[in-house]
């Protein structure tokens, strides 16, 4: 088996400004090249915290445990160092950056990722190609980052960046939220079009529907900051049908309401 891209070892995470509140309470996870993992769970279970922590968000602090990326302990690394090494986070709520065009952002990001200036012609060619694969018009790249974008456009803009930056690990945080069926299909097809065989993907989602387009090899259920159950795609299907309650009940995590 190939070496893992990502390993989380008994990871415990709290909010930086509220160190007493631990959100992730000991998570172990291993993602190998080519694998797609889905992390599911009810609201407030710690999914987005885990995603942000892997990306290096200063909002969260790792209390104990390790984040190992391609064999290297990156637990103390800044977000930009991680990104340059090939970790990409597709944000649940991408930030608006007025005055900065998508082209500007992509040029700077690509320069950082490759460690050198990307020649203009090469850049434009890659941009055209990636836009094409996402069925996006070139006008899109001239707009300010997320400024006035619809929900679907924001998520496509994230996938456009993923396509240009060619990460080894992509974390898709609720990429399906706020999208209608058509927008969801477009975004998911974009992800599939831009996937590379050596890439690992972690999809974070409430619902199963995005997984119909991007089929996961493994599904993990996060509840209360812990992975309480792991399985294959069928686990996601089961959640779609029955919700989280049966799993919670089975694990004794659901308080029965006394009648």
């Amino acid at each position, binding site marked *: 088996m190939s070496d893992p891209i990502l390993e989380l070892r008994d990871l415990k995470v709290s909010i930086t400004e509220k160190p007493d509140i631990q959100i992730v309470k000991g998570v172990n996870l291993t993602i190998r090249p080519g694998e797609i993992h889905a992390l599911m769970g009810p609201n407030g279970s710690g999914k987005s915290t885990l995603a942000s922590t892997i990306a290096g*968000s200063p909002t969260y602090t790792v209390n104990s445990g390790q984040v190992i990326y391609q064999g290297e302990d990156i637990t103390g690394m800044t977000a930009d160092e991680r990104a340059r090494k090939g970790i990409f986070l597709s944000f649940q709520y991408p930030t608006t950056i007025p005055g900065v065009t998508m082209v500007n952002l992509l040029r700077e990001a690509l320069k950082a990722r490759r460690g050198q200036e990307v020649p203009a012609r090469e850049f434009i060619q890659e941009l055209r190609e990636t836009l094409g694969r996402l069925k996006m018009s070139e006008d899109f790249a001239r707009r300010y980052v997320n400024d006035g974008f619809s929900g679907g456009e924001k998520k496509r803009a994230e996938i456009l960046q993923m396509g240009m930056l060619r990460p080894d690990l992509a974390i898709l945080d609720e990429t399906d939220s706020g999208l209608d069926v058509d927008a969801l299909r477009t975004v998911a097809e974009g992800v599939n079009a831009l996937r590379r065989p050596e890439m690992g993907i972690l999809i974070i989602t409430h619902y199963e529907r995005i997984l119909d387009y991007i089929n996961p090899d493994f599904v993990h259920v996060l509840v209360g900051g812990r992975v309480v159950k792991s399985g294959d795609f069928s686990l996601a299907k089961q959640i779609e049908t029955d919700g989280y309650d049966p799993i919670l009940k089975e694990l004794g995590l659901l308080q029965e309401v006394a009648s």
Partner: protein
Amino acid sequence: MAGAHAAQYAPEQAVSASRDRGEPSWLADARAEAARAFDVTPMPTPALRPWKYTNVAGLVIDSFAPDARFAPVVEGDAPEGGFAGTIAHALLDAAQAAVVQQHLGAVVKATEGKFVAANAALWTAGAFIHAPRGKAFAGPVSVTLEAGEGAIFPRVLIVAEPGSEVSVIIHAASGDAALLASTVVEVVAQADARVRLAFDIRWGDQTQEFALVRTRADRGSDVKIDTLAIGGHLVKQTFESLLEGEGATSTIRGVALGDRDQHFDFVTYQDHIAPRTVSSVGIKVALAGYSRAAYYGVTRVEETAKGADAVQENRNMLLSRHAKADSDPVLEILTNDVTRCGHGATVGPVDKDALFYLQSRGLDNRAAMKLLVAGFFASVLHDIDDPVLEADLAAEVERKLSVADY
């Protein structure tokens, strides 16, 4: 308290220097009057609202030796009947001299204040841009203010006759020596004239500038002023627009980028006098190091200005925790009949979410800051008439942020 060079600021000296330059007697008289005003006018104190954040109590203007050889370099081709050159040259031409005499000192009176009086007494060469009736300049006029040390008194007069068009870019630069600049710019925009004026401020580290830019805007005229302040130890600019004619429009846009101990102070005064006049002020400031900025803006809508449209905005981005900005926009509305009247002010650190977003794309802290500031300034820079200046300023902002202290 008189400074070491007080003799050069005296009325007799102003008059004899004027005579030596061969200036007409009306001008010599005006200089004498200005020098007398300088002598009796006190320095402004922080008790005066526009001077609250820039305390000049320790500044002695006449401790700086006036640079008698200072002359703006004016480049540009005027249409027939117009003029682009120094005021000194214009005075040699009877027709142009008449226009100068009519307007010079009519927009900004020498007796209004200490800095203005010093300027009116001691300005040298000057710059005069005259757009004749119904004519447009083919390209922008460039006025370069470049100086070494001591005191300079840049004086610019722009007269745009009815239906004319002119664009002027003032470039300001100096070396590392201590320099004081007291600048006065008078803009006369007659009916339906279109005037564009940009300040490219790149003074040296030891330069202090105090500038008053006042516009009289007649019916249907459209005046836009940009200030792009990057260099200088202390830059205080006051922009006043008197919207005297129906439907006149005044737009003020500014960006300032501070670092180290730079100090920027912007004051705006938009006076809506005539009906359906329009004013828009938008000043964006980014501050690194220990730099600081102040903004005080008054938009006044007189009883006579029915249907006025006025917006005023000042935004300050603090790039370091030692930087500081004060912002104080004021509306004075004396009529019930306004189309729109609004103002906004913000002072705050860089948006943390935006910073993390860019960092998550691989940009280090400095690269992310650069991009955020470039984006913050973009709307103002994109809107400058001159694409070469726009690109040059963007590069200058980038250079400055490459070494700035966050």
